């Protein structure tokens, strides 16, 4: 058996959670420190793992670790790392300490509980990205609703209860349908392979489903993932949740957990249901393109800063889904980069504006104006997040968006062209928001805003650094995810289109 790196990574935040409740005379750290240190240690472990990750390996997963869990049903506790999981584990590991550091004073009361739920969120996100057993995946997929439910319901705005309820109902609805599909899949596997298995690798390599079964099962899983990532028309929980949740919660939710939806499409739907994926791709691409424009247009009309960000994310999830279902290397790798870029920019947007909103306890756009005068540093950091979000070249968001669009354009011209229109809408929703909140005449509300302190700047600067790094040098993400994408393409049976006119030089 390998050295259980993945188990260690998964346990670190949980140990941190336990330490929070150990009496202080045994642990010489404050709650804040415990949470932060455990997330930093997690990050350290992830870096160690990333350095050992073999990008040229032909194996589907690395660092595998598996125990029997419920042998009767062939359920194992199986963790493994694909290239895509590594990217998303990395994103989770980077964002969590940033959230902890940046939201230090987000909650005055019940701080211990808040920290606990953040760490549990991190652990469940890591578990989802590492699970290689579909049953385990399902369990943690559902489990991660719990910490967010409490984070929204106990630390949110005035309508937090309703928002938390809506969030969990949507989550459960998706989860239930997925459970039904999962059980069905289990029986099909028993029938065909003669043994029950939930191994994702085995299911994708060995199972041959008949067309209609595959379609139904595909739709069952897709339903759950599309509610999570959210695609229109199943998106309405996100604006409500984002409006009520604290900025730290929103970052964890939209920056990390929503990626589980798109991750599930890449890591589960495509490998296990390749034929149905190909069949449904045009419809999904159409919906994605529609969602991109729909989200962007509605973002323009929002009056609340946080709701604007939620609709922007809906638009951006459209891009990620579109890239995945383009079935081109460029589009799919673009989607992986997009998940990272979106995580970074979402964190930047929510966390910087979080400082503003917390000071005034109000997130209406009309409330603010001319904030830049009192808080130039906040303005600058916010603008950088904005620019990455609207895919300005030189930022990570650009590489991602360009690759998704190009990959899609290779196979689906019209949806790609429609989606490209979003670059104009993006400039409108983002810069109009920036204009109304940060520039112009200073309002009474904005005049006594306190700018970021050193610690807060320190917390946010990794976001800026990574955004620029991946904008100019995306090679690490591309190299890590390349072989997994190639494997997925082979499973689906898709090939990259050749240029219409072959280059004389390269042939």
């Amino acid at each position, binding site marked *: 058996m390998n050295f259980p790196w993945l188990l260690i990574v998964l346990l670190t935040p949980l140990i941190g959670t336990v330490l929070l409740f150990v009496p202080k005379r045994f642990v010489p750290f404050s709650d804040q420190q415990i949470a932060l240190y455990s997330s930093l240690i997690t990050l350290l472990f992830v870096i160690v793992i990333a350095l050992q990750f073999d990008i040229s390996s032909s194996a589907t997963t690395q660092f595998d670790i598996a125990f029997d869990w419920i042998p009767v049903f062939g359920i194992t506790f199986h963790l493994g790392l694909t290239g895509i999981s590594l990217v998303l584990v990395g994103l989770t590991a980077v964002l969590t300490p940033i959230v902890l550091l940046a939201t230090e004073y987000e909650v005055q009361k019940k701080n211990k509980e808040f920290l606990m739920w953040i760490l549990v969120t991190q652990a469940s996100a890591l578990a989802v990205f590492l699970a290689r057993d579909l049953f385990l995946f399902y369990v943690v997929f559902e489990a991660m609703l719990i910490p967010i439910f409490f984070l929204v319901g106990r630390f949110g705005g005035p309508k937090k209860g309703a928002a938390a309820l809506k969030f969990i109902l949507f989550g459960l609805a998706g989860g239930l349908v997925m459970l039904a599909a999962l059980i069905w899949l289990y029986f099909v596997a028993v029938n065909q392979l003669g043994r029950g298995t939930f191994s994702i690798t085995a299911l994708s390599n060995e199972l041959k489903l008949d067309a209609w079964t595959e379609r139904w099962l595909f739709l069952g899983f897709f339903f759950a993932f599309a509610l999570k990532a959210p695609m229109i028309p199943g998106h309405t929980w996100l604006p409500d949740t984002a409006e009520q949740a604290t900025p730290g919660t929103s970052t964890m939710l939209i920056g990390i957990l929503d990626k589980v939806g798109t991750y599930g499409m890449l890591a589960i739907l495509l490998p296990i249901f390749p034929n149905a994926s190909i069949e449904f791709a045009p419809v999904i691409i159409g919906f994605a393109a529609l969602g991109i424009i729909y989200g962007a247009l509605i973002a323009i009309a929002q009056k609340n800063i946080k709701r604007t960000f939620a609709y922007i994310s809906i638009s951006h999830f459209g891009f990620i889904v579109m890239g995945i279902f383009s079935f081109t*290397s460029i589009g799919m790798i673009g989607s992986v980069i997009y998940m990272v870029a979106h995580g970074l920019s979402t964190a930047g947007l929510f966390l910087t504006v979080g400082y503003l909103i917390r000071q005034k306890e109000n997130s209406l756009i009309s409330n603010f104006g001319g904030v830049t005068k009192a808080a130039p540093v906040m303005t600058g950091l916010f603008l950088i997040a904005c620019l990455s979000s609207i895919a300005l*070249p*030189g930022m990570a968001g650009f590489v991602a968006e360009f690759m998704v669009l190009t990959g899609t354009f290779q196979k689906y011209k019209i949806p790609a062209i429609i989606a490209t229109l979003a670059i104009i809408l993006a400039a409108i929703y983002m810069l109009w928001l920036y204009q109304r909140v940060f*520039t112009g005449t200073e309002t009474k509300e904005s005049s006594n805003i306190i700018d970021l302190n050193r610690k807060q700047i320190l917390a946010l600067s990794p976001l800026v650094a990574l955004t620029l790094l991946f904008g100019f040098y995306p*090679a690490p993400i591309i190299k890590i995810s390349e072989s997994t994408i190639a494997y997925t393409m082979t499973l689906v049976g898709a090939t990259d289109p050749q240029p219409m006119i*072959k280059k004389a030089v390269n042939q």
Partner: protein
Amino acid sequence: MIAAVIALPALSAAVLLSFGNRTNKFGPWLAIFASTGSFLIGLWHFLQMVARPAEERPALTTVYEWLSVPAAGFKINFALQLDQLSISFVLLITFVGTLIHIYSLGYMSHDENPRRFFAYLNLFVAAMLLLVLADNYLLLYVGWEGVGLASYLLIGFWQHKPTAAVAAKKAFVANRVGDFGLSLAIMTMFIVFGSVSFSDVNSGIVGAPAWVSLTLGLLLLLAACGKSAQFPLQSWLLDAMEGPTPVSALIHAATMVTAGVYLIVRSASIFNASEIAQTAVVITGAISLLMGAIIGAAKDDIKKSLAGSTMSQIGYMVLAAGLGPIGYVFAILHLITHGFFKAVMFLGAGSVMHATNDNVDMRRYGGLPKVMFFTTITFFIGYLAIIGVPPFAGFYSKDHIIEAALSHSWWAGAAVLFGAGLTAFYMTRMMMMTFVSKSRWHEDVHPHESPLSMILPMIVLSVGAATMGILLTRNHVFEHWLEPITGFVEPEPPLPIQTITTITLSVVAIGVLIGIWQNIKIAKVAPVKVSFVVKAARKDLYGDVLNETLLMRPGQGLTKSLNIFDNAVVDGSVNGLGLFVSGISARLRRSETGYVRSYAMSIVLGTALLVIALLMVRI
């Protein structure tokens, strides 16, 4: 090594922006140092290039592999292409850029935060250099949007002014409409040629089907219209004058707005392959050059009048670029001379504003020569250059464009000739209103000459405005210089050159005379009873009205109604489902009778359903 040209101002901008107020003291000096250094490195490369024979001049430097997905044959390098065309731009950008940095030292000295201003200027220079040095369209796009960002930040530099913030956003959005075209062009290049580098596109376009060059040509034209404020994406440029005047001189006159012309000339092979795309370019240029001139002739705001003029002059360049190999060289020639004479006039306008408490209304100028000697002289040189009086720079570049346009078609020739007359008219009007006429100053205004840091750049630029034409056209030196890159065919106008020159000069003279005659007496307040042309021109020929009625209002309506739809219908149906379920559960609760027999019944039914489900799976 050439990467240092970009790296120097980029690093300086990064330092000034990240370290903030701590760099306030030396910030402007660091920025000037970076820009000057960049110019000197560029000059060194230029001298080396001149020493090499023509065919060995272009040099490609691959800095690193930027984007690469080998499986898909997708590879885009961060590579810089230094050739005769790009070095011309490098010199123009860094030379004019450095002068404007120096000018800003005086102009921005009273501002709260000159350090931030200089940081943005450096950022602009770096991005613009990347734009002209990139060896492929995607890297060009990085510079392309980079200058857009710098322009956005600088137009909105005085952020507390709502008008500035609105103008900045408008410029960015209009540019993004153009970028939509550029994005699609780049994607099309990739699926057709499997590459987006200039060399691969150039070699691939030769055998490509006609729709490829037509599509690419039109998409690139859209991009150029956005960046270069050409019809129908022109309206942002006039508003962009909200930015500090050095910005208007550097970005919105000499360099950034000409990037569209660069793009077209750089894509010469694409346009050469599509006559329709070329014609579209010529038409766009013709409309823009006339529109800009008409707008420029009606404005009382000196900067807006100059902005109209810029749109018009870029119209000349775009038109020339649309003429194909007979025009590319002259488009770039005019771009360079324009860079000098328009910059000097903008800086002159800035100097006048500096002296009159930031007044921009030409109706309250006049009588300035006695108090502002150098400003008047340098502005006058710029004036002579732009209206095309020999031997000033504009004469040479514009005359060539007129010849080339006449050899293309009568209507293109007529447009440029008429434009030359209009140019003479509105520039004379500006000259009369600002300098020649009697003073009509506001009461508390006491004009004075600007400090040396501002005068010096104006003098240097005016020397360029006076001499660049002769220097670059003597012995056809510029044609020979650019020919290996853009190609060159001698225009064959239907009339002898001397005749054309005579006609042009007569048209110019008529324009000047009308300009003088109409502006002997100038009212302090703009007259209200004016012809419909003037009324329309004062409103930017209804560019904004058109945008508002066709795009903004319907757009606002759409976003608002979609928002209502999303809340009421999409979310409403979800909430409705919730209500429905809770209603059902209330009913169902009655079935919870507490009788064991009914529970047993439901267990039986449930089991039966499960069995049926399992059987279905087995089948």
